[in-house]
């Protein structure tokens, strides 16, 4: 669901947000209807990549309010899974994972900010859906995280299944695909539901703890984040077995910039391949003399994978050196929430994260 986050506190925020969108879209010159697209040529034009290079940094929209995904640490540095996704792309482009400026976006501002060019990419736990790709002028190059929506209840209430929730009050954060998923689930099962829709995570936490609602629904990663956030009291809660939706969460970019699309997609693939090869941030240099041809290509020793993307030959090495392989990112941010890796294991380990070959 990804998508819940802070909604505008009032009408004025909403208006300001729309005004920004209208103004920035109105001021920008219309793009030529047919952007030049050169088939697979290394010199393909990428307005996004050109802007990033000229600026010297990637501008990345994150949530900024959820531990484990995007949350500033004690020194104000953005940490978490989403932040690392952006760092990996900066590492691929610049060879330096720190050339990123993070912008905190709410669920309302994320799409307008991306559409108007205020940010280059939104890595904010956003669900890949048909409408968003077909109607919003955006696209998702890679699924960084596979999740699904579940229900969290108090153990002492003795609820064993989501089908026992008929007539229950259900808490969720507004502005999310999860809101609609929950409504769909109750409709499909002919159960009644009383929605309790609360924007702020602190108020939501109080509402759940005080028993204002019988169940809290969100992506399972967010449920884990909630349990972790209330310390040992988290043990009083359990997640029901039903997972009611598919939540493929990815980074969003503007549609039509094929070169930038390729960079985001293959940076993700590089992190997965690195995990498969056993490369980590610490040991990557030892692979330089490895005789495996696939590893030789990965390291930029042979072939022209970097040039094909318009990047340095060492780009994949820079990604792994900068942020680590996929498992390292996962261990750093999500494992502390107590969430098993589940679907996000590599295919060879029984998951569905599948590294496309880099050749």
């Amino acid at each position, binding site marked *: 669901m990804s*998508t819940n986050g802070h*909604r*505008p*506190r*009032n*009408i004025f925020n*909403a*208006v300001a*947000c*729309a005004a920004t*969108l*209208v103004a920035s*879209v*109105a*001021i*920008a010159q*219309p*793009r030529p*209807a047919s952007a030049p697209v050169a088939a697979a040529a290394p010199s393909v034009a990428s307005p996004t990549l050109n802007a990033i290079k000229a600026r010297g940094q990637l501008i990345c929209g994150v949530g900024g309010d959820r531990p484990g995904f995007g949350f500033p640490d004690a020194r104000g540095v953005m940490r978490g899974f989403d932040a690392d996704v952006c760092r990996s792309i900066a590492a691929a482009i610049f060879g330096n994972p720190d050339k990123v400026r993070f912008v905190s976006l709410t*669920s*309302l501002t994320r*799409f307008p900010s991306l*559409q108007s060019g205020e940010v280059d990419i939104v890595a904010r736990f956003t669900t890949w859906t048909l*409408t968003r790709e077909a*109607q*919003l*002028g955006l696209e998702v190059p890679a699924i960084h995280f596979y999740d699904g929506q579940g229900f969290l209840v108090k153990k002492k209430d003795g609820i064993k299944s989501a089908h026992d*929730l*008929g*007539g*229950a*009050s259900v808490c969720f954060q*507004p*502005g*999310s*695909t999860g*809101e*609609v998923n*929950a*409504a*769909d689930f*109750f*409709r499909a099962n002919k159960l009644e*539901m*009383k*929605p*309790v*829709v*609360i*924007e*702020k995570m602190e*108020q939501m936490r*109080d*509402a759940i703890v*005080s*028993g*204002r609602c*019988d169940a809290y629904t969100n992506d399972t990663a967010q449920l884990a984040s909630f349990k972790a956030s209330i310390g040992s009291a988290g043990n009083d809660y359990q997640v029901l077995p039903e997972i009611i939706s598919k939540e493929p969460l990815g980074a969003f970019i503007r*549609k*039509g910039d094929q070169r930038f699309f390729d960079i985001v997609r293959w940076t993700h693939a590089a992190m997965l391949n690195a995990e498969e090869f056993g490369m980590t941030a610490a040991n990557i240099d030892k692979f330089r003399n490895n005789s495996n041809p696939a590893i030789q290509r990965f390291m930029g020793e042979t072939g022209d994978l970097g040039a094909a993307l318009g990047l340095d030959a060492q780009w994949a090495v820079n990604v792994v050196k900068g942020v680590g392989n996929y498992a390292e990112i996962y261990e750093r941010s999500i494992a502390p929430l107590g969430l098993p890796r589940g679907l996000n294991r590599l295919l060879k380990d029984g998951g569905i994260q599948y590294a496309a070959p880099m050749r």
Partner: protein
Amino acid sequence: MRRVVWQVLAALIVIGVFSWLIGNAQANLGARNVASGFGFLQREAGLPIAEHLIPYTPADSYLRALVVGMLNTLWVAFWGIVLATILGTVIGVARLSKNWLLAKLMSAYVEFFRDLPLLLQLFLWYALLQGLPPVRQAIHPIAGVYLSNRGLSFPVLDWQTAHSWTLLAFILGLIATVISAKRATRKSLDDGRQRATWPTAVLLMAVMPATVVITLGAPFALDMPSPRSFNIRGGVTVSPEFFALLFGLVIYNAAFIAEIVRSGIQSVSHGQIEASRALGLKSSNTLKWIVFPQALRVIVPPLTSQYLNLAKQSSLAVAIGYQDIVSIATTAMNQNGQAVELVAIIMGVYLTISLSISALMNHYNARIALVER
């Protein structure tokens, strides 16, 4: 003539700038493959709404969901304005009381609630309401009334057609009472004799509706709430979200209204009050006939602005989970990304509400304004 030319020129410039902005925005949205237009209003919304004054299910359209949101905004704003006016007037008058303790207490109220941000107050009320016991241990003071962290539930009349007729009779009686009271006042002014208006009022507003009830034989059956496994079913439940928002709006705005009322009363020259006492009017009549009519001319313009504030402040609802127009429109925005259209709708709704309040209050203001001869 020259003035007209300038006016036309200015209007043309404004229209030109706006059409350029809109045209360019449309071209750019198109170039960026962003769908636009209001066609989405007919599509199924799919979003759940807890409180709705008209029937609503997630299978209904976005248009209906937005109408539900608008009605929720109007509902809370209406009760907010009515209750804040009553509370504010009482506090404003009490602040001028000769009773030292009462006056100081009311001053403290005004200063305290006026100086704290409304959002903070809403969080406070909502947190306090969540401190109420869960459904299974609901407070149950008298039969049919339950107070829990799911809200206040109470029985309501099982509504029949006969009840509608009774209500109609009561409304007609109310209108007739107002007309007859006005006529009585006019006669009093002619001959100086005071007439009691209450017998007519009782006849029109109590006896007449009662007769309708008895003739039509309207049944008196109550829809009683009762606790179920999760929530309380039956009767009417006022949700903690609605109550916290209403309470916050009333408490906060009453502090401002009290100040408006106080300043209005103090604007009436003391000589007027002394003169009315000299005529032998009771102090309640002095307030009713001498002070308030003059004070209202000072009170109404700032009060209008306060009503507008209250209506707009209701958009803070989203913070504590009451689904108003802003809450529902922003959720829709997330589903279909049509931010420009939905923000235009939100703006249209608030503009309409504000202009309506403004028009009503200006009409009232014109009626009570001093007529100079």
